[in-house]
């Protein structure tokens, strides 16, 4: 998958789970713009993991701030599996 297609699939997966009306793109931030708290992000991650059939370790989430960051992490996990 290309980075753009991962971002596209990721955006479609999380859109139903995001209550704020912010536009979702590569640079949208999870905690700031999407107004998600840590617990909501954890639940969102479970849905993302199922969609891509990967497991994303909690350890890497500290460095994930935007949809683009998460897309890059997904690409890395898909590459490892």
């Amino acid at each position, binding site marked *: 998958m290309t980075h753009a297609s991962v971002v596209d699939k990721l955006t479609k997966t999380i859109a139903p789970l995001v209550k704020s009306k912010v536009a979702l793109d590569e640079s949208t931030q999870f905690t700031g713009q999407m107004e998600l708290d840590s*617990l*909501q992000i*954890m639940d969102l991650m*479970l849905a993302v993991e199922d969609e891509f059939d*990967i*497991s994303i*370790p909690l350890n890497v989430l500290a460095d994930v701030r935007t949809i683009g960051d998460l897309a890059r992490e997904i690409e890395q996990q898909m590459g490892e599996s």
Partner: protein
Amino acid sequence: MGSMSKFDAVVKVRQTLADVGIDPFGVLIERVLSPTEGLIQGRPTILAGTNNYLGLTFDPRCIAAGCEALTKEGTGTTGSRMANGTYVGHRQLEQELAEFYGKRHAVVFSTGYQANLGTISALAGADDVVLVDADCHASIYDGCRLGGAKVIRFRHNDPTDLAKRLRRLGDAAGDALILVEGIYSMLGDRAPLKAFVEVKREFGSRLLVDEAHSLGVDGDGGRGVAEAAGVLDDVDFVVGTFSKSLGGVGGFCVSDSEQMELLPYASRPYIFTASPTPATIASVRAALPLLADGHALRRQLRENAERLHAGLTALGYTLGAPVSQVVAVVLDDRTTALRFWAGLLERGVYVNLMVPPATPNNESLVRCSVSAAHTPAQIDAICAAFAALRDTL
């Protein structure tokens, strides 16, 4: 980043509480009157927010054992076992815990928090993978973080989801450590341990069960949910605490694994802290046989839990789980739960307020914990307080 900005989230929560005019985290129990009653704000208050499940904190045998140790061995050990020596009581308690569980090894820690921190951080290092139930206690997550293992979270109480994540690991699944609890502290729900054991066997992984809230409560011999489910032999590591049903403070891990002999040397929360005091060890040693023979206490606890569960259900409250000694009432939102909690305290009932992010599913709860020492009249008084507050919701 300003030095105080890290506290921004805390400041926000405290401001919310200040706006309502209630501080649920600053409750002062002015005098402890019994295992189930204390003086709060000058009022005799039913304590339904402790974890004194078997009511052993005032058992005369435990008190006598603690007093004797205090007199003979002094007030404290003044250091860690590794650097400053092990007392005979530490060693004896470890032997007794190993025998109680029918496991070869036991290690005692100074608190329940440190038992998880010390065990998990030693077992799972940077090259290891742990799979954690989403609703596990903070001490389990902190243990993972301290050890540096790769942490994968699976859906709460969902063996199918666990299996899916183990499958993704490929060959690494055989070395993975699965972390679950027996009874979960927020809602009081039990883990489906039999199903988890089947998954663990399928992938050759190891399973650690934290029985903090189920020790003394579940199982014919009080060993917890693993005993009740008939899978104690399949659980590789059992972690527990002295601070709930045993009425003391401290924690432990028991296991047949040969790693246990090395665990203390690799466990920073074991090495770099003072060991439990002689009085603590002695009172726990006195409580352990009472817990093992505690069929009557467990029956009383179950009856009390059923009475409260049924009473609150009849009042129309939504409860977090089927009957256990933890009875969590689910309320609409944080402010409602806060006001409700304060209303109970005004009516002489102390329970726990639990709000996000400490709770699963972002729920706001008032959490009652039942004791075998509660009288039926006290349980009825708790129900009456809930009944009086129902119309205020």
